[in-house]
C-alpha cells in the first residue's frame, strides 16, 4: 500500500487548491482524480472573480495559492468591478480561456514539489479506530494517509435534468460517484439536496456580432496575483444582448416541460443565479433580461450565454435562444441543463473543515453546499492546509471573520449552515472596509509565511513591498500642512486651523495620491503604486478605528472556546429549543454561538457564565 501524508480526492477547484496547499506545507500529497487532463476544468461559466469572489481569489493568492496565478495566465478580459466605487467594494474579475486555464493549472500542478497526481476513482474510505486512514480505489488498490480531503463537487448522487429527461451524472460527460456516495450515507452525515443550472453553449460563428453591443475589458487591467502586473495573452470583448417578450412567451408556454416547473426537481436553487424560467415567472413585469455572451477561449468559438441557464427541453431551448437579438441563426453546441446533487450540512464540520464525527476526513467545495469556483478553491485551501498541519501535529489554522473573507465564509458555513447554494458577497463581511482585495497580502501573506505555505519568490516581493509601504507611511505622516499651506497647494480642506499630515489628507474624498504628489515635492520619489495603496488604507482609517471596538469585542468572544463536550442540557434557564440547536451546532467559540439563528443575549450570557466557572475551576 502506498503511503502519503494527505490525499485529496477530486481535481476541481477545491481539490487542486487543497492539494497545492498541503504540498506547499511540505506534506507528501496525492491528488486522486478521474482524469489528469480534467484538472483545472471550468465546468460552469468561463470567468473567475467578481465581487466577494475576487476578494477570495486575492486571499488565496496572498497565501501563495494557485487560482489567482492560473486566472492571470488565462485571463482574456479583465475588469475591476465597482471601479468607480471605493476600494473596499472593488472586485477583480476576468473572463478566462478554458484551455489556457486548464493548461496553466496542470503546469502549476506538475511543477509543485511533494504533489503526486493519481488517476483513478475513489470507491471507498478506509476507517480505522474511528479515524479515516486511507482510500480504496475502484481497481481495488489502496492508498494510506493521515488526512483525506474530499472535494467531490456535485458528484454525490448527481442527477442531470434536461426537460423531462434525467440521467445520473455530476457534469455532462462524467459519471457520478455512486459508491462513494453510498459510503458517505453509511456515515449518516446530515445531507441536503441542492440544484444548479447551466445555459446552452452556443457556436460563436453563428452569432451576428455586428448588430450587438460589446463590453471590452478595462484599459488598465487589474491582475489577481500580487506577483503579476499585466495580462499574459490577447484581450477580447464580451457581447451583450437581451431577451424579449417573444422569448418570455416561448418560455411561459413551455413551463410545464421545464424540469424545475414540471416538478422533477426537489433541490433548492440559488436565488442570485436563477434559471431563465425563474426570472420570467418571478419578475413577470420585466420585458427584457440582460444576456452576456462570454467567449470560452481565444481559439475556441464556443460562447457561454450568461443569464439564461435553463432546464427546458432541447427543442424549447433552441426556440427561445433564437428569439433573442443576434442569435436568430445560432447553433446550440450543447444544451443547458439543471443538476441536482447532495451536499453535507456544513454544520457537521469544524472551522478546519474536518468532519467533527470522523477525524481525518476534510470536506471542501460544493459538497459543503457552496457554489462558485472561488468559494470552492478557498475551502480547498483551508482543508489542505489544515490536513497538513494535523498530520504534522501542529495547531490548526482558523481563519477569523475579522481578517479575511475566507474566515467569513467558513464561519457562515459551519455556524449557520446553508439553505441555498452559498455564494460570497461583500455584504456578508461586516468588516468589509478593512477586508479589501487590495490589501489581501497585507492581511494574510505574513500569516502564510509563519505557517510555511508561502514560497521564496512571494516572500521576497512581499517583504520588499511591506518595507516600502512602511517607509512611505512614515514619510506621509512626517509631512504636516496647516490648512493655509494646504489651500496654497490647491488642496480643499476645512480652514479650521487643524494641522494635518499628508497621510490624513489622503482620507479626504477628493484628494488622491497623484494630486498630493504633484504639490508636495518630497513625495515625488515615492512609487505611485505604493502611494495609491497607502491612500486606500488612509481612506478608511477613520472608519476602521471605529470598527476596531467591534473587532475587539468579536475577538474576545472568539477567545472563549466552548469545549466539544459542553453540556447545554445542564444549563438552567436555556430554552429547550436553544439547547437542541446548540447541541446540534456545537459552536466552537462564544462568537460562533452568538451567530446561531434564534440566539438571545441572555442565553449567551448564561453560556459565558458557565465558561467562566469552568475557567475559575481550572485555575483553582
Amino acid at each position, binding site marked *: 500500500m502506498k503511503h502519503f501524508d494527505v490525499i485529496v480526492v477530486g481535481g476541481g477547484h477545491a481539490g487542486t487548491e487543497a492539494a497545492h496547499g498541503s504540498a506547499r506545507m511540505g506534506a507528501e500529497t496525492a491528488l486522486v482524480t478521474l482524469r489528469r487532463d480534467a484538472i483545472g476544468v471550468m465546468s460552469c461559466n468561463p470567468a473567475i472573480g*467578481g465581487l466577494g469572489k475576487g476578494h477570495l481569489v486575492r486571499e488565496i493568492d496572498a497565501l501563495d495559492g494557485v487560482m489567482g496565478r492560473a486566472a492571470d495566465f488565462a485571463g482574456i478580459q479583465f475588469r475591476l468591478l465597482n471601479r468607480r466605487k471605493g476600494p473596499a467594494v472593488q472586485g477583480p474579475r476576468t473572463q478566462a480561456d478554458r484551455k489556457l486555464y486548464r493548461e496553466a493549472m496542470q503546469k502549476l500542478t506538475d511543477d509543485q514539489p511533494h504533489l503526486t497526481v493519481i488517476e483513478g476513482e475513489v470507491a471507498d474510505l478506509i476507517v480505522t479506530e474511528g479515524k479515516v486512514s486511507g482510500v480504496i480505489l475502484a481497481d481495488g488498490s489502496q492508498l494510506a494517509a493521515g488526512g483525506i480531503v474530499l472535494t467531490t463537487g456535485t458528484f454525490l448522487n448527481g442527477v442531470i435534468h434536461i426537460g423531462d429527461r434525467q440521467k445520473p451524472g455530476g457534469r455532462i460527460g462524467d459519471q457520478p460517484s455512486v459508491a462513494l456516495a453510498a459510503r458517505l450515507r453509511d456515515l449518516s452525515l446530515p445531507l441536503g439536496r441542492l440544484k444548479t443550472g447551466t445555459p446552452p453553449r452556443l457556436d460563436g460563428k453563428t452569432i451576428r456580432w455586428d448588430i450587438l453591443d460589446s463590453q471590452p475589458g478595462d484599459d488598465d487591467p487589474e491582475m489577481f496575483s500580487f506577483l503579476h502586473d499585466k495580462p499574459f495573452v490577447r484581450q477580447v470583448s464580451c457581447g451583450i444582448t437581451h431577451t424579449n417578450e417573444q422569448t418570455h412567451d416561448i418560455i411561459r408556454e413551455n413551463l410545464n416541460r421545464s424540469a424545475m416547473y414540471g416538478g422533477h426537481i426537489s433541490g433548492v436553487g440559488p436565488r442570485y*443565479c436563477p434559471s431563465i424560467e425563474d426570472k420570467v415567472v418571478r419578475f413577470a413585469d420585466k420585458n427584457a433580461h440582460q444576456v452576456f455572451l462570454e467567449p470560452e477561449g481565444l481559439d475556441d468559438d464556443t460562447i457561454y450565454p450568461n443569464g439564461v441557464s435553463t432546464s427546458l427541453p432541447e427543442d424549447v431551448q433552441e426556440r427561445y435562444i433564437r428569439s433573442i437579438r443576434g442569435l436568430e441563426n445560432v447553433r446550440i453546441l450543447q444544451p443547458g441543463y439543471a443538476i441536482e446533487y447532495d451536499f453535507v450540512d456544513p454544520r457537521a464540520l469544524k472551522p478546519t473543515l474536518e468532519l467533527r464525527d470522523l477525524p481525518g476526513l476534510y470536506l471542501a467545495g460544493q459538497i459543503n453546499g457552496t457554489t462558485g469556483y472561488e468559494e470552492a478553491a478557498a475551502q480547498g485551501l483551508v482543508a489542505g492546509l489544515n490536513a497538513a498541519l494535523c498530520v504534522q501535529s501542529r495547531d490548526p489554522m482558523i481563519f477569523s471573520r475579522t481578517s479575511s473573507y475566507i474566515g467569513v465564509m467558513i464561519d457562515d458555513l459551519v455556524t449557520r449552515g446553508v439553505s441555498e447554494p452559498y455564494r460570497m458577497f461583500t455584504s456578508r463581511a461586516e468588516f468589509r472596509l478593512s477586508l479589501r482585495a487590495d490589501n489581501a497580502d497585507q492581511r494574510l501573506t505574513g500569516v502564510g509565511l509563519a505557517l510555511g505555505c508561502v514560497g521564496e519568490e512571494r516572500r521576497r516581493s512581499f517583504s520588499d513591498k511591506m518595507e516600502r509601504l512602511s517607509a512611505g507611511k512614515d514619510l506621509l505622516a512626517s509631512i504636516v500642512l496647516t490648512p493655509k499651506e494646504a489651500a496654497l497647494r490647491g488642496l480643499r480642506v476645512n480652514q479650521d486651523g487643524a494641522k494635518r499630515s499628508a497621510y490624513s489628507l489622503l482620507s479626504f474624498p477628493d484628494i488622491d495620491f497623484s494630486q498630493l504628489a504633484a504639490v508636495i515635492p518630497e513625495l515625488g520619489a515615492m512609487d505611485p503604486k505604493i502611494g495609491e495603496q497607502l491612500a486606500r488604507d488612509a481612506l478608511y482609517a477613520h472608519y476602521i478605528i471605529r470598527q476596531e471596538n467591534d473587532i475587539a469585542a468579536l475577538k474576545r468572544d472568539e477567545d472563549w472556546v466552548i469545549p466539544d463536550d459542553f453540556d447545554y442540557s445542564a444549563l438552567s434557564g436555556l430554552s429547550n429549543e436553544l439547547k437542541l440547536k446548540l447541541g446540534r451546532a456545537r459552536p466552537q467559540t462564544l462568537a460562533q454561538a452568538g451567530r446561531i439563528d434564534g440566539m438571545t443575549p441572555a442565553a449567551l450570557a448564561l453560556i459565558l457564565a458557565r465558561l467562566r466557572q469552568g475557567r475559575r475551576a481550572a485555575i483553582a
Partner: protein
Amino acid sequence: METIFALATARGKAGVAVIRISGALAWEAAGRLAGRLPEPRVAGLRHLRLDGETLDEAVVICFAEGASFTGEEVAELHLHGAMATVTAVLRALSGMEGLRLAEPGEFTRRALENGRLDLAQVEGLSDLIESETESQRKQALAVLSGAVGTMVEGWRAKLVRAAALLEATIDFVDEDVPVDVTPEVIELIDDLRRDLRWEMDRSGAAERIREGFEVAIVGRPNAGKSTLLNMLAGREAAITSEIAGTTRDVIEVRMDLGGLAVTLLDTAGLRETADVVEAIGVERAVQRAQGADLRIFLLDDADVPMIAPKPDDLIVFGKADLRSVDGFAISGKTGEGLDRLIAEVTAILANRAAGAGVMSRERHRAALSRAFDALDSARNEVLRGTERAELAAESLRQALRALEALVGHVDVEHLLDEIFASFCIGK
C-alpha cells in the same frame, strides 16, 4: 435545572398571598401539598397538607411549560394572607429536594432568558411594579406589551430596505439593478430621522412620566415658598418662620397631581447674602430651579423674578391674605388661589405628558441618538454620490447596530432576502 419559589405578593398581613413556584419540579412540589392538581390554567380549591397536617385552604393554579410567565412549569398557591400561613408553606417548600427560595428578580430573569420577555419588556415590568400614578401605569403597560419592539420593528424594516438598496448597487453591479437608488434611500433615511427625532423629543416627557416632573417654587426670602409647599403637600414638610432665609437646602415633596408624579421643590430664597451657608443654598436653588420642568415664581408686590422665567412658567403673587394685588394671587395660609394653581400646574404638565413616547430611559435615548447620528452621516455619504456607497452602507450598519439594543439582532441574510425579493439578480 433548579426549581425556585417565592412569595409573589408583598410581605405582611393581607387578604390573599400568592406563592409562585417555577421549574421542572413545580407541579410535583405543588402536588405534594395539594394532592391532585387542577388542569393547567384552571383554578382549583385545595387543602394544602404536609405530613397529614393541614397548612391552609388555597386556590391552586398551574401553568404548563411554554405557557407561563417564566416559560417554565409554574404553580401558584393563593393562600390566606396571614404571615404565619405564608411562613408555614414556604418552610414546607424549602424542605423539598431540588427546590430553593428564588433570588430577587429571578422569575423575571428566567422569563427573559426563556424569551418570554424582551429587555424593554423587562424594564416595562419593573416600571409597572414601581408605578405610583396612573400615567406611569399606562406607560409601563405599553412598554410591557411590546410597544418599543413594535415601534422599532417598523424602523428596522425601513433601515433594512435602505441598506439592501445600497448593497444591491454594490454587490450586484453587473446585474439588472437600478443604478441610482439615491432618491428612495434618502427618502427612507429622512423618514427614519424624522421618526427618531420625534421619538427622542417625546422620550424626555416619557422619562418625566417615569421619574416624575420637577416643579420648583422660587422667589425672594420670606416670600412664603415653604408655606405654599406645605399647603400643597398637605403636611409640614418644610420649616416655616418669619425669619427670612429659613430654608437653606432644597426640600423635595413627591406628590400625585392629576395622575402625574410630581416632585415639588422648595428652594432657598434668592438674594445677595454674606452668609456662606445661605449663599450655597441660593446657588443650589438657582441650579435646581433652572433644571426643573416648571417653575412657580412666588413674588411680593411689584417684585420681578430674579432668574428669567421660561415659557409656561407660572408667576403668582403670594401672601394674598395680607394684601390685595392685581394678577394671580395666592395665599399659603388661607388657601386662596391654591386650587387654581394646582389646576394650572396639572394642565401644563398633562399637556407635556400627552406628547410622551414609550422610550423612557436614558438607555433608549442613547440608542436613538447613536442611530440618529449614524443616519445623518449615512445621508451625507449617499448625497456625495454612488462612489461612496460603501461608506453610506457602513453608516447604515452602525445605525442598525445602535438600534440592536432595542430590536434584537439584524444580519446580512435579511438584507439579501430584501435584495432577492426586489430585484431580478442573475446575469
